[in-house]
């Protein structure tokens, strides 16, 4: 089964004064998994909602399975399934009734719908709680029910908006296994997340968004190499002015990202002379360094460097 792909061009969306999207381009090839990575407020949910026909873009275009989301929303809805950032289960009825309801809405006859609902309860290990009101489900159960409801119609294209947010590590791993299982069937998947680790675990390609713009795109490996092999962490004494130290490093042509909570500056080392330059820059003035460490960046640090650099631009 091939569900078709997704193409988004120059998409913009404003909510009052907030520019949620400032011109987003992205493409998900049929049968692939794209991770849409970005911090809170980056615009991920807005993209997903536009692609789900729940929101209209201000300008730009979006095609899902070849259909324009604005002009042919009904055809788009036929091609997709959505698991929103916030659970969309009906809390007033049981888990089984939730699944039966969706199956019936998708056109299954009562008997088929009942069988399909039971099948999904089984598949998502919800059999034991299927008869209970969904309002009493834990976060993990709710996610699973949400996912089950979305997969009832065997969609060709699936959106998962921050699927593991709010789950404990164990449930998160379980969910990843479920998602990996689904993607073997040739489904096109758009997955949003705030964690590079999750994007790498599930997605072949990653698009990084921040402030309503695409700031980087590539495979997780490419993104990591793009920010260089090494990262430098400089820990400063509490008395030292973070901004002054950052300015000194910038003057030495480095791109430090400040973590005010920890009083740490992080930067990537891209050229051979960078480490020496950092040492020299910090040696002048009354900067007190309490830690100086180079390491291979973690995925989340790679992500921070990519989006943080953009955030700094906006500060100026």
């Amino acid at each position, binding site marked *: 089964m091939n569900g078709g792909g997704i193409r988004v061009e120059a998409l913009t969306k404003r909510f009052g004064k907030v520019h949620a999207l400032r011109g987003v381009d992205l493409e998900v090839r049929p049968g692939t998994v794209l991770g849409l990575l970005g911090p809170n407020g980056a615009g991920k949910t807005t993209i997903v909602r536009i692609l789900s*026909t729940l929101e209209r873009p201000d300008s730009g275009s979006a095609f899902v399975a070849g259909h324009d989301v604005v002009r042919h929303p009904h055809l788009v809805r036929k091609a997709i399934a959505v698991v929103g950032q916030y659970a969309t289960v009906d809390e007033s009825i049981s888990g089984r009734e939730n699944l039966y*309801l969706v199956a019936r*809405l*998708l056109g299954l006859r009562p008997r088929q719908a009942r069988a399909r609902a039971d099948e999904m309860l089984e598949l998502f290990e919800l059999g034991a709680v299927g008869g209970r009101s969904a309002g009493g489900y834990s976060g993990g159960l709710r996610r699973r029910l949400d996912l089950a409801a979305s997969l009832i119609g065997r969609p060709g294209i699936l959106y998962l908006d921050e699927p593991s947010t709010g789950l404990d590590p164990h449930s998160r791993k379980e969910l990843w296994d479920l998602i990996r299982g689904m993607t073997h069937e040739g489904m096109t998947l758009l997955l949003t997340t705030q964690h590079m680790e999750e994007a790498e675990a599930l997605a072949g390609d990653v698009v990084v968004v921040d402030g309503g713009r695409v700031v980087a795109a590539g495979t997780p490996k490419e993104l990591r190499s793009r920010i260089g092999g090494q990262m430098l962490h400089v820990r400063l004494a509490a008395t030292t002015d973070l901004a002054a130290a950052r300015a000194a490093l910038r003057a030495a042509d480095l791109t430090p990202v400040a973590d005010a909570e920890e009083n740490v500056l992080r930067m990537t080392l891209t050229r051979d002379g960078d480490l020496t330059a950092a040492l020299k820059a910090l040696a002048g003035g009354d900067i007190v360094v309490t830690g100086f460490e180079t390491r291979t960046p973690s995925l989340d640090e790679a992500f921070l460097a990519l989006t943080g650099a953009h955030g700094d631009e906006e500060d100026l």
Partner: protein
Amino acid sequence: MSQALTVTDAFRHASVMTRRNVVQFKSDPGLVLDATLTPVLISVIFVSVFGGAISGGTADYAQFFVPGIMAINLMIVSRNTGVGMAVDFNSGVVDRFRSLPVARSALLSGRVAADALRMLLSLVVILACSTLIGFRVHGGLAGAAGAVALLLAFGVALSWIAVCIGVSVKSVTTVSTLTSLWVLPFQFGSSALVPTTGMPAWLRAFADVNPVTLVVNASRGLLDGTPGLPSILGALAWIAAILVVFIPVSVMKYSRRS
């Protein structure tokens, strides 16, 4: 917008949604009590407290009052139609329905249909219990059926007004307040509880064209075996006008709201 959907699809989707709402009644028995116990209690209280003072006898007042309380109770039941809509929006489940290839009208008309069932139950219960306080149907089965059908149609119209409020306003509490508030002048500025003849001229001018008055008068006529064509036609005109305005506006607001 939903060019690929047929009317048959819309009906099928609406009936599935109706079932959903009926299943909800099980988890929220208050919805059914609101439609049955409340009006019966109100009837007993009104008839015993005001009956003597207004009509000179409780049985006379019951004969006058029962069609009125039937109409008023429809307004009480319709409030939950709006509140239920707002609850759906706030729970996020609306996003699922709107991202499915399902008729835009289905969630709304399904809820209205389920609440029409509650209204039907309510009307039948009131009618059955009212014989205990001296109410008599003189119009025969046809009169009773006609009155119930007319009242039910009015109830459906009221539900669409409530749905419109429910899809337009975000806060559940505000929806609850608004759906209770707008009906007040129509309830009391009508012939539901007292004859309009005793009202001051300005109020009477309003009361005589008030849809509640027309529906109540038409129902009284049908139940008493003295059907009046003007009030029936007036009531039907109001019902049609409300439906023509509020159905499309509600569906549009439902589809557009983000």
